[in-house]
């Protein structure tokens, strides 16, 4: 764990406004995401955060060496 469980929960909650607003912002650049696409993007982001958070922090140095 790179972060406390409470911290992880808050980060995931904080992704909600980012994903919702990202969709609005993207539409100004002509990229229109459907609700399903936005949901998939959101899940991918949450997955990425989970992988980052659950990655063993002492394993990070080994990975760097390898």
């Amino acid at each position, binding site marked *: 764990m790179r*972060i*406390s*469980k*409470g*911290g992880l*929960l*808050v980060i995931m*909650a904080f992704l*909600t*406004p980012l994903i*919702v*607003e990202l*969709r*609005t912002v993207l*539409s100004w650049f002509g990229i*229109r995401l459907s*609700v399903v696409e936005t949901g998939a993007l959101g899940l991918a982001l949450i997955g990425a955060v989970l992988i980052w958070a659950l990655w063993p922090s002492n394993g990070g140095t080994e990975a760097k060496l390898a």
Partner: protein
Amino acid sequence: MAMRNAYIDQFPKEARVIRAILWSSFLALTIGGTLGLIQGLHRTNVLRFIPSQDYYTVLTAHGVLLVITFTIFFLVGIFTWAVTTSLDRGVKDIRFTWGWYAIMMIGTLLVGVSILGGVVDQIPMNADVLYTFYSPFQAHPAFYVGFVLFVVGTWLAGFDWFRTWWAWKKDNPDERIPLPTFMALTTMLFWYLSSIGVAISILAFLLPWSLGIIDSVNPLLTRTLFWFFGHPVVYFWLMPAYMLWYTMLPKLSGGKLFSDPLARVVFVLFLILSTPVGIHHQYLDPGIAEGFKFIAMTNTMFLLLPSLLTAFTVVASMEHGARQRGGKGYLSWLKALPWRDPAFTGMALAGLMFAAGGFSGMINAGLSINYLVHNSWWVVGHFHLTVGTAAALTFMAASYWFIPQLTGKEIWNRSLGLVQVVLWFIGMTFMSNAMHRAGLFGMPRRTAEPQYQGFDFEPAVGTVAEIDAQVALGAALLTLSVYLFITNMVLTTIGGSTSDAIPDNTYAGTLSGPEDAPVIIDNLKLWTSIAVVLVIIAYSLPLASIIDAGGLFGPGIDPWKPSVVADPSLVLESVRGVMP
């Protein structure tokens, strides 16, 4: 048994009153929140089980219960805690404290029953007038009497704190006013000043009019008097949240308040500037000259200053806590904050949402841009971030710290508390984001069915259906969050076990203390005088011109009782009848 030093141990009698007050507040939150869900589902056409004309009764109750009952009960409770804790002495006479609480309760019941009359035929009353009760809508006299009693109760509560402070001052003539007491007193001072507006509106005009003593009122005058009070009241809700951010958040973060003097300056600015801004709610009103509106805008914009200063001071205090707990780096210190504590996380998330609500407030404050957003759903999105999150979420979060202080019991389930505050944040993200966006394409607030026969709304992004779905989802999550909160509070109070591990009743220390603040900052008489002068400058000419143009009692305005609900086709007939 270890010596415990929670609030209930220090002030058992006061703890009892505050418990009763907070429970009144929580009850209002639960009912008001449930009504919010009914509205959210009705408006968005997800689920409609009440007739649309009853929507406005529900809306009136939702508004009054949440922005008046829930918030103000909570704040009189928390200010009683603040004054007694920081002065380290009890109230002068506990019977007086119970007395003003009883008056506020009677007021609440009168208002509540008269609103309920809108949907219950057996109650021969009606008050479907929304919380703004604009004339010529006329509510049952009980509504106005209840409202006045409630406000008088808050006045007496303020007197209670002032005389506790006066007694303390006699014993401590050379000491600075402790910060929490300073905050409670400055807040009360602008509350006294601003509630004069609504008192005159009700006692001189609306109540005699509803009793038939006078037969006409001037709608623009009573409306202006309402907003004389109606904007300061939002700071009345917000100041207890600010007090908690200044005095509790640094402590919960493990740090100290960055600057006590600046905190005092902020509250003095609120005292001075809260009232002469109300006309910004009337940017689109006829009968008020543009120059007066511009003055109101300038005052409003400068009122951003204390909030922007608060953002810095509070975040810096949190950062101080994080760094003392081992946090490092430019932003990595954020990880060192106590995110597992629902009291901390709830308040921090409330502050974050207030930053967003602050932005939409800046738009609302802009004079000309008001044409775009006035009375649209944008405004509803805005105040659900301010009173609905900055205040409400802070109050709920703070309860995870206060209820143990007041009961001597541990919170039933702190993890559930964390889930609850996070759920509020997510629900509010969906709901307020959608409301803001809907406002920008012109969807109005305060309407049961925002679908029209002759035209459709054209959203810039997505569809109206998507907006509706977001609001309904948000409303459901928020209501679930309220239920989780109330469940936790009930089970803590009735089922929780008395614990010795309750933390001591303390608030945050300071990095730069009151000794760094010039003595003049504690001169409440001076600041109150300046506030009065500013109010006179901002309001005397507009009020004079409104009375000059429309008369004190208006140009023969007939009362309109919303209880007389007619069939629309009959109404159309009557419309043809009055047409020339």
